[in-house]
């Protein structure tokens, strides 16, 4: 499928007026949603997702428990009106299941599941609008929702999409660009620079791949900075609201008792 729109014009601008490496406007919202232990809404340009985390809590089905760590359950719902053409996918849809398992495997090594044997952590993802970079938005939103729920994470996971147009790499693709270009979604853990996810459905030349991976790592750092600022702001807001902050003496005692 090729569109008539120029992906990258001679002036170095993309169809939506961005430069090659420019990311779309991102919004991160950590407002509480009814009932969830943690939640977050994330938008990259027009793409918008909402994630709610429940748990660690009692597993709904006993067969799902794992004796030495928590089970992570990811469910994805895609609003039928989220794409240009309306399409209703059922929950059992292969693509949705695959998408959910991608998110699960991204976070499995990051969440400290061993702290919660036999528990379950539910991650409910709802895609409300799609304009490219859906996986990237889901992963970033899941990171924030988990942090919001106080689930221990080794690090943030920050994802970004990269593609190549005629040897020129680009970041944070829209649907239009995704349709035309080979692209890959990369998730990094900023502290170590470790990559927890590379998801590619198109072919990409090996030389380009390396470049994209490097760029994605860099962009992940930029996204991380934003996400971290939001988490900090929320934490600070809560601490300030709790008055003089958390009194050290009280909680230190708790911690000692608990840790011993």
């Amino acid at each position, binding site marked *: 499928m090729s569109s008539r729109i120029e992906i990258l014009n001679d002036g170095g601008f993309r169809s939506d007026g961005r430069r090659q490496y*420019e*990311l779309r*406007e*991102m*919004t*991160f*919202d*950590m*407002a*509480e949603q009814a009932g969830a*232990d*943690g939640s977050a809404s994330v938008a990259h340009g027009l793409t918008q997702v909402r994630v709610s985390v429940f*748990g660690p*809590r*009692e597993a709904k089905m006993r067969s799902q428990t794992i004796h030495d760590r928590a089970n992570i359950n990811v469910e994805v719902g895609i609003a039928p009106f989220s794409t240009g053409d309306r399409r209703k996918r059922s929950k059992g849809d292969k693509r949705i299941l695959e998408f959910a398992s991608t998110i699960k495997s991204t976070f499995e090594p990051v969440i*400290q599941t061993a702290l*919660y*044997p*036999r*528990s379950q952590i539910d991650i409910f993802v709802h895609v409300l609008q799609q304009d490219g970079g859906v996986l990237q938005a889901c992963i970033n939103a899941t990171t924030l929702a988990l*942090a*919001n*729920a*106080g*689930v*221990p*994470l*080794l690090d*943030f996971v920050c994802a970004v999409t990269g593609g190549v147009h005629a040897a020129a790499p680009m*970041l944070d693709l829209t649907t239009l660009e995704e349709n035309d270009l080979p692209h890959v979604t990369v998730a990094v853990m*900023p*502290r170590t620079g470790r990559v927890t996810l590379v998801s590619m459905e198109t072919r990409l030349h090996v030389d380009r791949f390396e470049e994209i991976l490097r760029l994605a790592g*860099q*962009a992940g*750092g*930029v*996204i991380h*900075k*934003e996400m971290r600022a*939001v*988490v900090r*702001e*929320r*934490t600070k*807001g*809560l*601490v*300030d*609201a*709790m*008055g003089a*902050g958390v009194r*050290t003496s*009280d909680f*230190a005692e708790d*911690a*000692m*008792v*608990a*840790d011993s």
Partner: protein
Amino acid sequence: MQITFTSFPSQSGLRSAYASATKHATEDDEDAYMDVEPFDDFESDSSRLTCPGETLTSAQSFMRGHGTYVDNDDVISSVAGTVERVNKLITVRALRTRYNPEVGDLVIGRITEVQPRRWKVDANSRQDAVLMLSSVNLPGGVQRRKLESDELQMRNFFEEGDLLVAEVQAFFSDGAMSLHTRSLKYGKLRNGQLVTVPPILVRRLKSHFFSLPSGVDLILGLNGYIWVSKHVKESEREGEEGFDAEAVYSNRNDDIDDATRTAIARVTNIIRILAAHSVPLTDVVLLEAYEWAVEQDADVKGLLQEDVSDALVAAVTSG
């Protein structure tokens, strides 16, 4: 009939940390990477904030506690919250999380399942708690022996949905807590309604049972479940003459007059407001808030109006 339509609040403010930015990935992003703050100011600043993946200190001179892990000789935070230090122990306390039980804690729970010789209880923790049949007092007195028939009629004591107040007794090897209600203060709850708040807002207090004027009793569960109910007269407390031992497992409410019901609704709304503003709940704060509400003559619903609730919060936090 009354209906009010409003718009969604604009994205900002305390309860919804929010940011929006457009970035160039190749911008000079030196500061995108950890601005590692020196650890020296740690002592002075007791509520230092941190995020998952942030290096806190060296693992050689400190020990890791909750909310941290060790990687390559560094103690690193795994949750967003405040850093606490006691001697060599570093912990990070998350501000929103499920309840972390400790032995001796007072909790309120809801029965989720009846199993052979035990109940499963939701107590807002990582797993359902367990209440053994042997850990409850049966009607007929503390000394009464357990009969086989008791096992067959466990639903006569507690059934699914029932609320109870209990104490954390011990932990199983998988971290699940076991509860007991072997005190006359504990047991089934009735004559009131439940409010839930983030567990961090309920501090460990001398007593978690207390009464407010206007005939309202409160039980503050450390797991964030709070029971607001009609006041039980001293003379009808456990051990006293008027105490009805048979009523321990009753599902029937006493007669409650309208004034008490209004008071209960008012206290419930006060707790909701304070919790929404992250005000830690103690007997003192609740009493102050209640008195303020009575003084202002704010009706139950009026409390939820933004200006009134803000004034309420300001009144209790300034004192």
